[in-house]
């Protein structure tokens, strides 16, 4: 028999994309959220438009753990094509719901789980007419089944539907009918609720459920970005869509219909980054969003921006590489590609948000830094953060915020100057002053990616060239002090975990588990490249640090190795690169395996 797991279990729903199950899944997830229970939803969808396997994982966690748990307690197996693997995945003692309209003997192969058959298709075919409607209804009907099995509040579900279909009330009714159908069937045929169930709490107040791309887009709106240029690519597209729709709502003059933003669908990524550079150079806050292939295509322009010192903000919503890879799976595989993008001696400021909340704040930060440092700033999110709904504390905004436009000379300052020199290090921080076109002829300068003196003139002279190149390193040192600081947790253990980005939630859960089992271990989450003082100190203070990241080649470990003083032997990699978000159990097991092994001595393994 299964133990009761109130507010602490994982549901996985296996369907086919393009058939309407997405709304049912969101409905379930949100109704749990609204009952005050922490929840997370992760969507594993195929890179096509219709007809292929797709999964949705809902983790209900009274303790607020929003990473993948690594186990499935209740499987809703609605896709015959994936039955075999779906059945396998259910944890012993777990449950499986399937459409019993057709007999599925294969599903009965697991005596250790409880199989629940509901004739979804049959019920819907009887109740509804029209092929399309029947399919759609079947795919909402299971929400009713789960509502009964997990004891979700039907009224809350109706409320959510009413919000979604505010403009199409008829849809609310038909959907509710389907849900009721499932609900009633389940209650009539099975003991409800299951040992897995949801009981209202109040742990979601002051929180929202939002995806990282939406949050980042909102951050761009609030940062005052006006020129957005991009080329569509999964999983970055929704960031741009969200920016546009926020601006359509918030930045259009109601009287004139004029838009206080420019939104440009470029012909490709080379053009997109070119547009961002042109706009930033000309004094607008400008950004683009892309994914790995786009970063590769932007390499040449990124080098120009670094060397000619043009601000720019680039969101890289990472997906699985190399090459086209798996466009709808997640990875942290572009760390090196972004940090050192382009030929020659280049290096770029990178920010690493861990969740949608940080996407929001770091978007703003990225613009401030880019203008402050006059260099491209890349925000490395990923598909998991960007496209999944995460529970976050409410986003906050201080109306006192004003954009930091960095060292831009205004007309009055220009008039006072005898002569303007673009690349001179007046302030000793490696950051020169810039001017904008259209202000005054005296302030005009010539921007070029070819060799230039500190005065902005073309040069092929070694010394002149080096003056600029060396100053760029001083600017880099300044950057170290300006970028977001890392976040540390725990104190004084000799073991540490170092990580970044979306691995955070899994790590925080793993820490709880490990500490629960008596493993004293600290945690540092790096939030930006270059690394600063605190990263150095953490690494120095720990005998052994596990570097947890989601790629094959230990890219964060590489950056730490190169850009801090740490001895390599003190870094141990835990690498997860399956394309699914890392789970807490992966980390727990990885750490335990290492410290349990007789060779618990640090050793150099680049690819664990």
């Amino acid at each position, binding site marked *: 028999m299964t133990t009761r797991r109130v507010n602490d279990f994982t549901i996985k729903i296996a369907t086919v994309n393009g058939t309407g199950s997405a709304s049912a899944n969101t409905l379930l997830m949100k109704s749990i959220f609204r009952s005050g229970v922490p929840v997370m939803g992760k969507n594993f969808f195929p890179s096509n438009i219709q007809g292929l396997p797709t999964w949705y994982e809902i983790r209900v966690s009274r303790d607020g753990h929003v990473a993948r748990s690594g186990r499935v307690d209740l499987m809703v197996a609605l896709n015959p094509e994936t039955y075999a693997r779906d059945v396998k995945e259910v944890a012993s003692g777990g449950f499986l719901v399937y459409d019993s309209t057709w007999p599925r003997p294969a599903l009965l192969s697991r005596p250790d789980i409880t199989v629940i058959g509901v004739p979804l298709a049959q019920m819907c075919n009887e109740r509804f007419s029209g092929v399309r409607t029947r399919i759609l209804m079947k795919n909402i009907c299971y929400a009713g089944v789960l509502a009964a099995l997990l004891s979700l509040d039907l009224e809350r579900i109706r409320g959510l539907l009413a919000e979604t279909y505010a403009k199409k009330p008829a849809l609310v009714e038909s959907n509710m009918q389907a849900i009721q159908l499932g609900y009633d069937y389940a209650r009539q045929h099975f003991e409800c609720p299951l040992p897995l169930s949801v009981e209202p709490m109040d742990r979601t107040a002051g929180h*929202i459920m939002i995806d990282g791309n939406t949050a980042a887009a909102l951050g761009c709106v609030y940062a005052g970005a006006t020129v957005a240029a991009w080329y569509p690519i999964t999983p970055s597209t929704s960031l741009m869509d969200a920016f546009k729709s926020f601006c359509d709502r918030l930045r259009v003059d109601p009287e004139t219909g004029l838009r206080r933003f420019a939104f440009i669908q470029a012909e490709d990524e080379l053009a997109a980054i070119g547009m961002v550079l042109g706009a930033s150079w000309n004094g607008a806050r400008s950004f683009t969003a892309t994914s790995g292939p786009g970063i590769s295509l932007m390499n040449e322009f990124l080098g120009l921006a670094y060397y000619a010192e043009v601000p720019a903000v680039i969101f890289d919503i990472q997906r699985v590489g190399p090459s086209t890879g798996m466009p709808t799976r997640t990875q942290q595989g572009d760390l090196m590609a972004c940090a050192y993008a382009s030929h020659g001696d280049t290096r770029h400021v990178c920010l690493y948000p861990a969740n949608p909340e940080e996407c929001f704040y770091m978007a703003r930060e990225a613009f401030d830094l880019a203008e402050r440092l006059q260099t491209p700033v890349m925000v490395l999110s990923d598909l998991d953060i960007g496209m999944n709904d995460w529970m976050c504390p409410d986003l906050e905004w201080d109306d006192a915020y004003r954009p930091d436009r960095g060292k831009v000379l205004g007309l009055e300052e220009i008039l006072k100057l005898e002569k303007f020199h673009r690349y001179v290090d007046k302030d000793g921080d490696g950051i020169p002053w810039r001017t904008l076109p259209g202000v005054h002829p005296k302030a005009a300068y010539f921007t070029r990616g070819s060799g230039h003196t500190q005065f902005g003139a073309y040069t092929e002279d070694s010394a002149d060239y080096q003056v600029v190149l060396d100053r760029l390193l001083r600017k880099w040192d300044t950057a170290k002090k300006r970028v977001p600081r890392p976040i540390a947790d725990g104190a004084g253990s000799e073991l540490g975990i170092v990580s970044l980005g979306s691995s955070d939630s899994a790590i925080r859960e793993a820490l709880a588990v490990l500490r629960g089992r008596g493993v004293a271990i600290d945690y540092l989450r790096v939030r930006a490249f270059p690394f600063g003082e605190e990263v150095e100190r953490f690494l120095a203070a720990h005998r052994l640090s596990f570097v947890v990241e989601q790629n094959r080649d230990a890219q964060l470990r590489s950056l730490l190795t190169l850009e801090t003083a740490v001895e390599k032997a003190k870094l141990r990699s835990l690498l997860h690169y399956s394309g699914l978000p890392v789970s807490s159990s992966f980390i727990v097991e990885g750490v335990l395996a290492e410290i349990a092994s007789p060779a618990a001595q640090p050793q150099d393994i680049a690819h664990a």
Partner: protein
Amino acid sequence: MTFITKPKVAHPSLPRNALGCTRRDYEGALSTLCAGCGHDSITAAIVEACWGLSLEPQNLVKLSGIGCSSKTTAYFVSGGHGFNSVHGRMPSIATGANAANRRLSYIGVSGDGDTLSIGLGQFCHAIRRNLDMLYIIENNGVYGLTKGQFSASADVGSKAKKGETNLQPPIDPVLLALDLGATFVARSFSGDKRQLVPLIEAGLRHRGFALIDVLSPCVTFNDHEGSTKSYAYTREHYEPAVLADFVPREREITADYGAGEASEVILHDGSRIVLRKLDADYDPGDRRAAAARVQERMSSGEYLTGLIYLDASGERPEFHQVSRTPEVPLNSLPYEALTPGAKALEKILARYR
């Protein structure tokens, strides 16, 4: 390349424009191109045109890619900002810059390699967006800076300095621009300042994408016999179709035109272009006819020059009209006009609960 900056001491007798500036005030750094390079003549024509328009130097933004031609943005109007970007990608820089500040004048200078090989895609898409800029191709049929390879505008049968003969048909930027809906399409020759200067003036004032393809011989790599982009060939096979005189709003039309000889087009800012058709049949307002004529002349080895096509109707919206951006440049909007503020955030968040 600016090893040397030109001394700018204006002789008191030099003519001054409405701003009180002499031509000298529109010059730039000393050219480092080969003596006799067609590109330098175009630079001079640009200086003349900017002076003639009494353009405030700081209101000119100069954009380019990479090549001998692309270097020339450093050689005129040193009072305007310049952005010498990367090879073939100037149009995207121009698009972003223009998006940020629609009030300035944008002049892009490119080469046939920069535009028609590596930059072909961006060039076409800038036309498609009807970006408000003047785009000059300094077309010499070769890659000058990398020492004389054929470019995509080399004609079939034209010979490289090393003797190789080109067998691939050229890509003609004028035809391309006509096809893609450009609203101002001209061709000229670096050696014909009288034709070129008013075209540049008109192109700068035109609202939307103005293309001037300027045949500009490369004396070092493509000025020999057998080259269709040589001075000799160009001078001979050069057929002006429609001459344009440009008259800024601020000025009267002074020249006398014989009856029926000239027609006038008024630009959005009130300036006028006086068109003198050398061939009564030719209609520079008919896109398809223009394309047909260009092709026809080309097939007999002639370059049709002048203002080949002009749509001053303003019917085709330029980039900002499509984007519906306000008159105030985006880069000048105060932050208050951009941030929804803390209160609005509260409402937004409500959707995510």
